[in-house]
């Protein structure tokens, strides 16, 4: 998707078209999640701090972002993807790999599929996307970047939309590119490569693997060398085979109140469980992540006997782990993730009976919750993610938060970033 969050905002409010738009947290800790091409002309880009963006482009329209809407749009786009192939690997809300090798017979060529997907996303969703077509994930990713609109010398070039790199022509495509284009080349690696005279991917490919290993270490050197020659044999992994599903959230202010943290836990568990169910799975391992006010992060995991897919089931498992952590110094970020999946419709394991007729205190019965969870999913499908939520997430009406809100930092109460 091209400037995804901004595109969704423009779709929903066409009056914003042509203006510099910045989507992201506008609080003191906010970061830019997306910037329109008009804002990029001023040097604003994603992951920059919002306060810096505001200095660079004081006239930009700052929008807090609507993660729930983006997720919904993303899900619709993924649905289009899955009508071509079940092998869809989402790497971000607005980015995915599709392995269409099984669909070629029906559609003729990958390029036909690419054109059709672009047309359908534009028509059915109302946003644009760019597609890279290649024989492996790495080259396809670079090609998709090359296909995107971009700012050149202060004006916006709409881009080609689809860039195809035919098998066997990867080297020709890659070698003129700057080394920064390669995955895994951050500022530090870039500086090291620059020192040994490597400017382009072609330079890197020609320098020889021994020199790279000396300069960058064994793993990194060999990896980049392979990429420079267009070698990448990783398969497209659909979400069903995903290793984990999670949400995390940065708070407006550090939270030291365990009761409030528990409310956030309930909400995050609900959100993650919803995605685990949407994935047609149950999870056996659940992980809690906490980042303290001093940025120190810890994670705590629990593996349960019987796989779970309900929010209360997740909360029950993670609640004690949260209670065992001393939070008095303040928590900056809370995250929940689920892993070790099994198919939701797979055979049920043995069920341990209970000695007491009534469920003992605080005991979550997954079987009972399976029905309730299904009803919640149905309500959300029809009326939106906000239509139903757990009581713990509803302490007061003003405080209604969206599921997994603020992934890039919350808004400041008065919209001031300075």
């Amino acid at each position: 998707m091209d400037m995804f969050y901004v595109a969704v905002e423009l779709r929903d409010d066409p009056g914003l078209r042509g203006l510099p738009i910045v989507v992201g947290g506008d609080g003191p800790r906010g970061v830019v999640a997306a910037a329109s091409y008009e804002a990029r002309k001023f040097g604003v880009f994603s992951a920059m701090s919002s306060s810096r963006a505001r200095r660079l482009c004081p006239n930009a329209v700052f929008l807090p972002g609507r993660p729930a809407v983006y997720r919904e749009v993303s899900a619709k786009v993924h649905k289009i993807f899955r009508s071509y192939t079940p092998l869809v690997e989402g790497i971000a809300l607005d980015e995915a790999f599709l392995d269409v090798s099984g669909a070629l017979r029906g559609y003729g060529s990958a390029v036909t599929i690419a054109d059709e997907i672009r047309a359908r996303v534009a028509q059915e969703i109302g946003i644009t996307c760019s597609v890279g077509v290649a024989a492996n994930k790495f080259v396809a990713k670079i090609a998709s970047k090359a296909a995107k609109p971009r700012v050149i010398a202060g004006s916006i070039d709409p881009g080609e939309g689809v860039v195809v790199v035919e098998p066997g022509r990867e080297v020709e495509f890659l070698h003129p590119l700057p080394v920064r284009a390669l995955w895994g080349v951050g500022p530090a690696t870039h500086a090291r490569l620059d020192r040994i005279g490597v400017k382009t991917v072609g330079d890197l490919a020609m320098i020889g693997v021994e020199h790279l290993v000396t300069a960058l270490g064994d793993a990194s050197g060999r990896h980049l060398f392979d990429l420079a020659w267009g070698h990448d044999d990783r398969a497209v992994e659909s979400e069903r085979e995903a290793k984990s599903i999670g949400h995390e959230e940065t708070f407006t202010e550090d939270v030291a109140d365990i009761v409030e943290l528990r409310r956030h836990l309930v909400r995050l568990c609900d959100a993650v469980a919803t995605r685990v169910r949407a994935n047609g799975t149950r999870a056996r391992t659940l992980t809690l992540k906490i980042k303290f006010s001093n940025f120190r992060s810890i994670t705590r995991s629990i593996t349960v006997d019987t796989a779970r897919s309900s929010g209360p089931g997740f909360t029950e498992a993670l609640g004690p782990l949260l209670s065992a952590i001393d939070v008095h110094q303040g928590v900056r970020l809370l995250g929940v993730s689920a892993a070790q999946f099994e198919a939701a419709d797979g055979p049920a394991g043995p069920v341990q009976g209970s000695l007491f007729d009534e469920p003992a205190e605080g005991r979550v019965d997954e079987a009972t919750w399976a029905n309730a969870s299904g009803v919640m999913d149905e309500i959300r499908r029809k009326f939106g993610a906000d239509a139903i939520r757990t009581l713990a997430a509803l302490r007061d009406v003003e405080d209604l938060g969206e599921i997994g809100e603020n992934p890039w930092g919350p808004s400041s109460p008065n919209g001031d970033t300075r």
Partner: protein
Amino acid sequence: MKFRSEREQLAEALGLASRIASGRVGALPALSGVRLQVKGDVLHLTSTDNDMTLQATLPVGGDRDGVSLISAKLLNDIVRSLPEGKITLEATAESLAVKSGRSQFTVPTYNALDFPNVTPSAGAPFSVPAGEFGEALRQVVRAASGDQMRIALTGVLLTGEEGSLRLVATDSYRLAVRDVTSIVIAASTKVLIPSRALSEVQRLLSGATEAAISLDDNSVTFDVGGTKLTTRILTNEYPNYKNLLSGTYPNAITTGRDALLDALRRARILAKDQGPVRLAMTGNGLKLTAGTKDNDEFEEDLDGVYSGTDITIAFNSDYLAAGIDAIPTDDVIIKTIDPARPAVITASGDTDSEYLYLLMPQRI
């Protein structure tokens, strides 16, 4: 503060203290410490995690009275690393020096004023035989829950039953009840004690002959030879376990405890992740199976004396093994009703058994 001690006795006391001291992430540093206080020729060690407190005394060669607070884990690691023989500990304002032979550690200390005030239970102590009480704990503590969402079940109920001591624990899947008829206690006694503390008490009791228990409204203290372990009492409502004790069991098998435990150990190789083991009981004895028919399978025949109708019943292998292991006699009796209702495991020999382990089957 300055004193001399033999490595052995200091290491033993510090081992205990470092298990009690808080290991909680982000907890107050003082709670991860052991407080050392020298008065004359006696060292007083204290550590606490605010729920549970250990107070121990040790005869030492005292050179200078005083107090020091230091990470219990760090000091324990240091003392354990040193060779056998005399160790000297000397505190200055902000550090502690630990010397042995030609080795010397100097490590920072915490402010001793940050250490919480700890007091043992105020109740009148009553004495119990250490061996019997320790054995009763061994049999019961295992059935307590580790689930922090079900706080009441993480406790062990210490109560008076017909004039003597009864210990009860359940995690709702199994229930262990032990009557210790030799320990007389008021029928009105009823306290719920965190099982974590009782596991530590069990360690303290090994090798001791006598222990004293004092109870007040908030806490209980176990005093074993001058080492005092105090824990807060849980106030949560305990489930009504008594109506589970009145079942009649038409089927019973008597079989050898050790042979069954050995077979279970083998079965658990295939009964992974708390999976089930199946017991088929007939007039021919006992057949133990585990695994899945289409995939892998374990099977072992055991001798047994059976009365009742043929039955096959499945249990969580860990829970079953824990119940068999708790039985002190050569033979165990497993009594059942049907594959869906609780089974009971008792010792054989005396019909008036003081211990029972009630276990809910798995439905497969």
